[in-house]
């Protein structure tokens, strides 16, 4: 349910960013010379996201709290050269540059590709790794041999990456976007997608040991990972450039990368960037030349996300309403066994997080041979979860109808079934309308949770666009307005319906 707060949190976050950029007092911290601060405190604070995973930074499975990965070793080498200790700062990858700007840590080093977009908001050091994008397919699949073969196929990639941008530029590719690195490979082995297109280190680490998968084609779209620092920290960038140069020349960098199977011919290119530091020392960057992308450019993508949100919400509500009704009737009128089943269902679904239920449905069920599409898993997950709540609403509604109604119907010769259908349920439904509306609106917002199973709905569209454009504020407001624009008419309609039904029993 953490995601429920996502929009609010993002809007709040953007508000803070918005105000900090207008009130210089709050930015004084960032103006302090970070290099001096690191040296005087003896601590280099390093921002990364361990959820991003291997081989960059991840938790050692043998000693869980311990972090390992080639970037861990790199950062340790850098700190050693600076004569300081490393302090790690876990931060969601999507907002890592934003947190860097806020001053949460000194450097962001976590497979961050150097792109013109990002160079607008942060300062990059010389590259420390040359990456390329790699295609991975099922070992048994011969259809795809090069980049062009991806057209017309379902391809998984990670969001906010060069690979994703390249796929979208190609067009005609059905792109499935994931936030974790394990999931695309899992879906690939489950036939849910045809290929994975990601940074080579990820491809090598996850696909090479898996006999079901293989790497095909030459790596494409070479690019560089760089260490990001705040724009004003030129001195720090300079120092880091010197250290990277030294690690390269001494062969320590090669040693680290080789250990992780990441050294290749492309890495020789790193030596070409000896002059990288002059680029910045000669022309210090102006602070605010950030191009604000026009919001209307993003609107179609947001609206597309909104459509997915509506589709998922409607279908899962239909499932929740009908399954909930069945559960309520089982619980109230069924035999002992049906009552027990219904009660257990309700308690289990209410008592466990929706997020876990979604993970089990989508990633867990394949272990017992049931592979659902993301859309089906989303609807089943949301629908089955909300059915538990609807069931209790109906039960309360049914129980609120006086016993005399049932007795009158029975005394008129109606069967129990007919009594329930014609007399009890129509009345119970009115009692249930306000809490049902409430639930529908909650479900509507909870639908953002399904982004964990590679569905891009409204919230996910927002976080993808916002982290690409660094504009959490305007996009956040627009997204929130879209949600509100969809849920408010629903409340109005429910209120109208309620009043219409109420007018009949004025004197009761």
């Amino acid at each position, binding site marked *: 349910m953490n995601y429920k707060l996502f929009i609010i949190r993002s809007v709040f976050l953007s508000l803070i960013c918005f105000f900090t950029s207008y009130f210089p007092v709050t930015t004084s911290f960032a103006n302090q010379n970070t290099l001096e601060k690191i040296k005087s405190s003896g601590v280099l604070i390093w921002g990364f996201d361990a959820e991003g995973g291997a081989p960059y930074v991840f938790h050692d499975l043998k000693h869980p709290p311990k972090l390992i990965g080639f970037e861990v070793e790199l950062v340790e080498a850098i700190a050693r050269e600076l004569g300081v200790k490393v302090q790690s700062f876990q931060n969601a990858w999507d907002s890592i540059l934003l947190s860097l700007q806020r001053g949460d840590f000194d450097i962001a080093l976590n497979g961050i590709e150097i792109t013109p977009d990002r160079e607008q908001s942060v300062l990059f050091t010389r590259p420390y790794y040359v990456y390329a994008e790699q295609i991975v397919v099922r070992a048994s699949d011969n259809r795809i041999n090069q980049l062009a073969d991806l057209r017309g196929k379902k391809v998984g990639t990670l969001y906010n990456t060069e690979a994703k941008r390249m796929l979208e530029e190609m067009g005609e590719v059905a792109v499935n976007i994931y936030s974790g690195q394990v999931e695309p490979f899992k879906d690939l082995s489950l036939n849910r997608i045809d290929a994975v297109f990601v940074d080579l280190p990820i491809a090598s680490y996850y696909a090479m040991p898996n006999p079901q998968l293989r790497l095909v084609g030459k790596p494409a779209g070479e690019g560089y990972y760089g260490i990001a620092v705040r724009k004003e920290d030129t001195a720090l960038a300079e120092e880091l450039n010197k250290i990277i140069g030294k690690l390269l020349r001494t062969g320590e960098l090669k040693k680290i990368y080789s250990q992780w199977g990441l050294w290749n011919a492309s890495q020789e290119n790193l030596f070409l960037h000896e002059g990288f530091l002059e680029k910045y020392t000669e022309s210090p960057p102006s602070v605010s030349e950030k191009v604000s992308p026009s919001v209307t450019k993003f609107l179609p993508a947001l609206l597309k996300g909104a459509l997915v949100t509506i589709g998922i919400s409607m279908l899962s509500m239909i499932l929740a309403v009908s399954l909930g009704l069945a559960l309520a009737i089982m619980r109230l009128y069924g035999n002992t066994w049906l009552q027990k089943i219904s009660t257990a269902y309700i308690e289990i679904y209410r008592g466990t997080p929706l997020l876990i239920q979604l993970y089990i449905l989508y990633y867990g069920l394949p272990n017992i041979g049931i592979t659902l599409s993301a859309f089906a898993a989303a609807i089943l997950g949301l629908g089955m979860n909300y059915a538990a709540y609807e069931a209790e609403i109906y039960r309360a509604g049914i129980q609120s109808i*006086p016993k*005399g*109604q049932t*007795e*009158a*119907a*029975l*005394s*008129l*010769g*109606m*069967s129990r079934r*007919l009594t329930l259908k*014609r*007399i009890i349920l*129509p*009345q119970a439904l*009115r009692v249930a309308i306000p809490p049902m509306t409430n639930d529908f609106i909650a479900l509507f917002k909870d639908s953002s949770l399904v982004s964990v199973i590679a569905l891009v709905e409204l919230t996910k569209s927002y976080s993808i666009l916002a982290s690409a454009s660094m504009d959490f504020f305007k996009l956040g407001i627009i997204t929130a307005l879209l949600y509100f624009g969809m849920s408010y008419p629903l409340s109005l309609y429910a209120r109208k319906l309620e009043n219409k*039904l109420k007018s*009949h*029993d*004025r*004197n*009761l």
Partner: protein
Amino acid sequence: MIEICNLYKQYDHQSLFKGLRLDVAKGSVVTLIGPSGSGKSTLLRCINGLETFQEGHISVNGQKLYGINEQNYDKAQTNQTLRNIRRKVGMVFQQFNLFPHMTVLHNITESPTHVLGTSQSEAESNAISLLKKVHLEGKAHSHPGQLSGGEQQRVAIARALAMKPEAMLFDEPTSSLDPEMIEEVLAVIKDLVSEGMTTIIATHEMGFARDVSTQVVFLEKGEIVEYGRPKDIFYNPKNDRTRAFLSRFTK
């Protein structure tokens, strides 16, 4: 037409009826009188199966309902018997129990169309003539919430009559009405019994009981204390308990 034979009924561990017997012949009008808690309502509710009983049997028009402890008791059979009985015996409740989500007309046509399979048009024309009978033809399209208590109870009577019952059970039909509305409801019941409808009424309206009944039953603590013609019960009660009960009403 209705025979109650050796009825035993207990609530939790408290016995109410201990071998009660009562015969109601076709066309007779039996009123049940007695203090609250004497079992008047329970007896009516046993007859159309809204309450179960432990022993004995109740026979309505040849359909036999057995107590749940009887050897002849069979759940599926009982359900079938109950539906047969309920189609032939109408019931009117103290709280009216009209369906609030339906119009008056719909309240009356609901059961004939869904249970008896009567066509909608026939059910409606029948409902209109029943509404005329209870003097409410103008209220066909009102909802129950828009009617007074007396009007609601008259609709409830029309609703029961729409099933063309052979007997009617009235469970304190005027007890939750304001005094000025009691007469209009009693007048409707009087009309009905004058047409020869077999009727059992639980009531606290002694004048009414005296005027319309063919037999009066005085019940106390689940036991028939006295049974007889109204003039015998009201003017010449044999039992002291009957006398004591009635004296409270004649004061």
